């Protein structure tokens, strides 16, 4: 059964249609990369998937028992976060917030979850460090740990390696693939990096000039849309 279904979705930004009639669906455990040039609507689609923007027509539907509070999201870093005084533990723990409803304090279950995810991403030693003093790669790991606290099944990432050096980027991509393989977490990633996407993903969604390609990676490699894009 599909975990996510987009049916004939058109989204607009400030009155202009960014893309039209987009339909695709994902199964549990899929790894989708969303490609496309700047302005092709990748971020708008991401906002739609997150429920921050409503499609102007069509429907975006999560199913298979997934509710909105179970989405894990790794945003592009905002300037606010770069000088935010917060310990790593505080940031990671805040990912569990959606699990506890109105209760004002974190319980043992939330703390355990946060500890587990720190361990999973091997950043337990950074637990009490200040978030803003970390390197870019470490910061992304912290945000990933937070996202994992929020979800067991679906991870959305918005250009997660922007600003990271190649070695750290590769490490980070490895981590995502591991989560996808070992924990069967469905991954949706907006990316600039075509080569990496084709190597790691199971599905590709390519947005360009209001049209789009959606399919398995192999089909994408054969398609004409990838030729222009990959040879650049």
């Amino acid at each position, binding site marked *: 059964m599909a975990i996510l279904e987009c049916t004939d979705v058109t989204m607009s930004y400030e009155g202009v249609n960014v893309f039209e009639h987009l339909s695709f669906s994902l199964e549990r455990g899929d790894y989708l990369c969303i490609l496309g040039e700047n302005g092709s609507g990748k971020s708008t689609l991401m906002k739609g998937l997150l429920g921050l923007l409503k499609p102007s027509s069509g429907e975006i539907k999560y199913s298979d028992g997934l509710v909105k509070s179970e989405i894990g999201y790794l945003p592009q870093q905002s300037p606010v976060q770069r000088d935010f005084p917060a310990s790593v533990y505080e940031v990671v723990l805040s990912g569990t917030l959606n699990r506890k409803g109105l209760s004002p304090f974190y319980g043992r279950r939330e703390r355990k979850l946060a500890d587990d995810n720190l361990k999973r991403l091997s950043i337990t030693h950074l637990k009490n460090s*200040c978030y803003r*003093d970390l390197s870019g790669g470490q910061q992304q790991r912290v945000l990933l740990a937070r996202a994992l606290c929020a979800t067991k099944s679906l991870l959305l990432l918005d250009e997660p390696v922007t600003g990271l050096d190649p070695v750290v980027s590769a490490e980070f991509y490895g981590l995502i693939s591991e989560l996808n393989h070992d924990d069967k977490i469905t991954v949706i990633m907006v990316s600039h990096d075509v080569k990496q996407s084709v190597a790691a993903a199971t599905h590709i969604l390519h947005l360009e000039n209001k049209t789009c390609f959606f399919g398995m990676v192999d089909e994408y490699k054969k398609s004409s849309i990838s030729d222009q894009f990959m040879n650049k």
Partner: protein
Amino acid sequence: MEYSISEMMSFTFMQRAMIVGVPVALCAALLGVSLILKRYSMIGDGLSHVGFGALALAAAMNLAPLHVAIPVVIISAFFLLRISQNSKINGDGAIAIVSSSALAIGIVVTSLTGGLNTDLYSYLFGSILALSKEDVILSLILCAIVLFLYIFFYHKIFSVTFDENFSLATGTNAKAYNMVIALLTALTVVLGMQIMGTLLISSLIIFPGLTAMRVFKSYRSVVLSAAVQSVICVVVGLVLSFYMETASGATIVCVNLACFILFSIVGAIKRR
């Protein structure tokens, strides 16, 4: 020294100033941390000017000042927050327009109805003499509400401040919590205006948080340090203003400034 500390505290106006000043300082510091980090530092300033306009109108119409100022400032807080979130309008510019207009309207109304009287003067620069018994009771109740809501929503306010989109995407109602922050800020500003004055209340909100951030690195330690420091600065400031016969608001700000410089030096030494 003409008076001992115990003699000073036997004056009703000093007791009232302390009773109002300490909880207001606490609320202002707590909210300030969030406002600074959300880049909303100027909202406090804008709101206080709106508060002044409301007070001038209240005085002209012979109404109780706080009864007019509190609702007007709360409404403006929601309004300013909406503007700041709307990417089409420049938030900074909007706040500047709203705050200077409100101040201007206040002053025009006052001049039309008989010039700056002492009440309005004390609202501009702050006075510990102006507090009535009713003000004190109202302030205590509102501060209790602000503190309760802040503690109850502490973790959610952290999450919304750190990353609004993440909170929204994972199902936290970030907009509602922004409204909570705006409401609490509005209440704090109106209450603080009496002691600090319109022109200086925003410093009560901004200084403690910024000072704490010089030295402390986790959100909780910043919040706690801001709260403690803010209360100490207000108490010291009030005592100094009593002995030196200076305006209370300005004295408190000077103490805050001294504290900021001290923390900056400590922070610089720690980083080396």
